[in-house]
């Protein structure tokens, strides 16, 4: 394999919303490269639909403190409150700045940025829904991704497109380099750098039914986890209530924000029973559990009684066309149904990783229970865990997270690299990656990557998703371990160098298996129910024992060692989460 060498002050890994926003912040301040395995505009930020919250108060009274309260409560009090306050306060500037960057938000009749309702966002500490989500039809993420990419072009940001980062190097206790695989040539590239910011997005392809792109395989967390960085709060994975039945394609909460209703087999608006005040706009963890409870109790719909309906038929057709054009098109394309007159079969879909690479409010990666910073290492966006989402993220808070903490990370990184010199690269820095690639390429074992992956996804969906028990988690842990064995014998057919996705899919599966194990072990240990983590055998929240973040460390054989760290509190005392 050919190896190329580069030297930069800083490298951003990933070109979704978080990576692009970080790149904008560093532009002109230091020499930066952005490495991305996809063309920037293919990043899954572009799939985000509903909106981005900020208490602009453009259409009704609102305040960033109310937003922070909702975020903390929505996260079932596992949120670090200072981080949530920063995010909600800076949200206002972040939205205004996006508008200045050219973002085409929907407008009020007065020409201001329009706002709409979204799940879990309330007026005055839970009194009722509030219009807080800024949006651009139901393609808010697309517009944000395009706008940020455009601003990177305007600043001449240096992209390495279709470069997949597979390893990181540390020397003298800080970051010294990255190793990337170039898809077009199969060559390796070593980047000598003072700092790296990971913004590689989520890992929702661990589950069978998912709203995530097939490329969302947790590479960034996977690379760092193998190099000794812990993964925080992995047991908290969000299932969005309204995925298209079987396909998992998302139908945004905006559908319910605009007035859509969930109905069971008796045509009952069942959310009235679970969340009398906000009903269909309760937070996602609650709605997902409500749907599956209806299904368990026999009120599901269809041959297998395993889905419920999303009903938009009572909405004015013009409102559907204007506010929800894309998602109603998905229903027409993939289900062959007309949402203006027909109800839509939906089921919960794996959506968002609350857990990930632990960071502080400057997006610096912290590597232990004492929040010790690893100099030069940063993370932002869905791959990171600040933690602003705690045990359950509120809708619209991720688009916010990526721009707020992408910007903070970029700023902190630019400042850092201007104060230090490069650390020497370790000798043979690319050997590990070369070994990984060559082992897969030359393997004669007969195990098929796609089959192992499919089994992982099915098991995780069945036993480690919305409802979990000690028994289900032990069973899935056994399976993950046996899949790890099979993975050692996985072979690939493509032995070539050019666009060898056979190879990269195999490598990605390795990351998914590692992260799945950390998720299951963290979930097994947490004998309580909080946010998206629900244990049938421990159905209540246990603040006395579990008001703390999990940290999963990887042992050499892939097994997991757990540690914990304190949640950073603030003015909101934990109370029961009712809506």
């Amino acid at each position, binding site marked *: 394999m050919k190896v190329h060498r580069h030297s930069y002050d800083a490298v951003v890994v990933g070109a979704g919303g978080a990576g692009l926003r970080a790149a904008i912040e560093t532009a002109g301040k230091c020499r930066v490269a952005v490495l991305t395995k996809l063309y920037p505009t293919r990043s899954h930020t*572009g799939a985000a639909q509903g909106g981005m919250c900020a208490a602009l108060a453009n259409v009704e009274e609102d305040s960033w403190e109310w937003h922070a309260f909702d975020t903390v409560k929505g996260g079932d009090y596992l949120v670090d409150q200072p981080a949530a306050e920063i995010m909600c306060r800076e949200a206002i500037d972040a939205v*205004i700045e996006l508008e*200045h960057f*050219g973002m085409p938000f929907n407008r009020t*009749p007065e020409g201001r940025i329009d706002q709409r309702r979204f799940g879990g966002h309330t007026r005055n500490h839970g009194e009722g829904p509030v219009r807080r989500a800024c949006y*651009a039809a139901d393609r808010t993420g697309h517009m944000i991704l395009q706008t940020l990419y455009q601003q990177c072009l305007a600043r001449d940001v240096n992209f390495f497109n279709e470069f997949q980062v597979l390893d990181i190097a540390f020397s003298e206790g800080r970051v010294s380099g990255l190793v990337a695989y170039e898809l077009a040539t199969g060559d390796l590239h070593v980047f000598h750098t003072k700092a790296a910011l990971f913004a590689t997005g989520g890992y929702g392809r661990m589950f069978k039914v998912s709203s995530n792109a097939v490329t969302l395989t947790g590479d960034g967390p996977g690379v760092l986890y193998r190099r000794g960085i812990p993964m925080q709060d992995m047991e908290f994975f969000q299932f969005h209530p309204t995925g298209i039945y079987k396909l998992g394609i998302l139908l945004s909460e905006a559908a319910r924000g605009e007035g859509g209703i969930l109905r069971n087999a008796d045509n009952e608006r069942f959310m009235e029973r679970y969340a009398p005040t906000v009903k269909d706009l309760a937070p996602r963890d609650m709605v997902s559990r409500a749907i599956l409870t209806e299904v368990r109790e026999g009120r599901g719909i269809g041959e297998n009684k395993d889905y419920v309906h999303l009903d938009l038929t009572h909405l004015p057709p013009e409102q559907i066309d204007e506010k929800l054009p894309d998602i109603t098109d998905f229903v027409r394309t993939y289900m062959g149904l007309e949402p203006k007159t027909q109800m839509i079969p939906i089921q919960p879909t794996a959506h968002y990783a609350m857990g990930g690479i632990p960071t502080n409010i400057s997006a610096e990666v912290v590597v232990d229970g004492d929040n010790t910073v690893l100099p030069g290492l940063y993370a932002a966006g869905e791959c990171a865990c600040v933690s602003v989402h705690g045990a359950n993220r509120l809708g619209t808070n991720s688009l916010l997270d990526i721009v707020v903490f992408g910007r903070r990370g970029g700023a902190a990184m630019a400042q850092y690299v201007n104060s230090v010199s490069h650390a020497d690269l370790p000798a043979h820095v690319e050997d590990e990656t070369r070994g990984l690639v060559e082992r897969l390429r030359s393997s004669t074992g007969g195990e098929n990557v796609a089959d192992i992956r499919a089994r992982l996804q099915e098991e995780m969906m069945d036993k480690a998703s919305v409802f979990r028990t000690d028994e289900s988690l032990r069973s899935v842990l056994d399976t993950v371990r046996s899949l790890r064995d099979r993975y050692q014998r996985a072979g690939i057919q*493509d032995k*070539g160098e050019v*666009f060898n996705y*056979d190879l990269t899919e195999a490598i990605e599966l390795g990351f998914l298996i590692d992260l799945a194990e950390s998720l299951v072990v963290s979930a097994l240990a947490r004998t309580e129910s909080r946010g998206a983590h629900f244990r049938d055998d421990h159905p209540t929240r246990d603040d006395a024992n579990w008001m703390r973040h999990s940290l999963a460390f990887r042992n050499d054989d892939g097994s997991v060692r757990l540690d914990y760290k304190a949640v950073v509190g603030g003015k909101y005392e934990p109370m029961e989460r009712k809506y």
Partner: protein
Amino acid sequence: MAVVDVELKIKRYNPEQDEKPHWETYEVRVEDTDRVVDALHEVKWHHDGTFSFRRSCVHGVCGSDAMVINGSNALACVLLIKDVGTKISVEPIRGLPVIKDLVVDMEPFFDQYKSVLPYLINSKDPGYEERKQSPEDRARFDDTTKCILCAACTTSCPVYWGNESYVGPAAIVNAHRFIFDSRDEAGADRLDILNQRSGVWRCRTAFSCTEACPRDIKITQAIQEVKRAILYNRI
């Protein structure tokens, strides 16, 4: 929903082995409600791992998987088997260099996109508030904001096949998105760029682009609006 056997004819090319592209046929079993991309995955995962194509979101929003399916440009993740039938031919989009199988070199396409200054240009300090824009002004460029840069339009254009210096419909769509944005100040510069030999006047209004666009953008109309703005010097 029914299980069907599909005959997929795929134009294959491996630069490490082949002198020129050739067709291979695969028989795969899928459900008729599956997408074409699912059938391609079935080929890759269970028949021939050396087959390469780009894809990511698999629901028509990222623009990775434009290809020629049964003769026309489309996204493989948006077409369902039941709508295209059980004999399917797939080949790379035309007009861009093929690297491997369905993977083409996208650089020329993105270079053309970049040539039209695809970012908001406004030198006035907006202060701490948003710039105002009426819903009517916002509506003028709404359609062209939908573009996902999939290249289906540009690579369906006969003019583009014959002349690679033509900026192509996608670049014009993205210029339109800023030219008609009331907040932008560089419309005249973009019109100058599109008034050059490689610009809008190459368009012969063949409508192939509009038919190919998976986002249903009215591309020909957008191009006409740009032409008119140049002719009458009016935005």
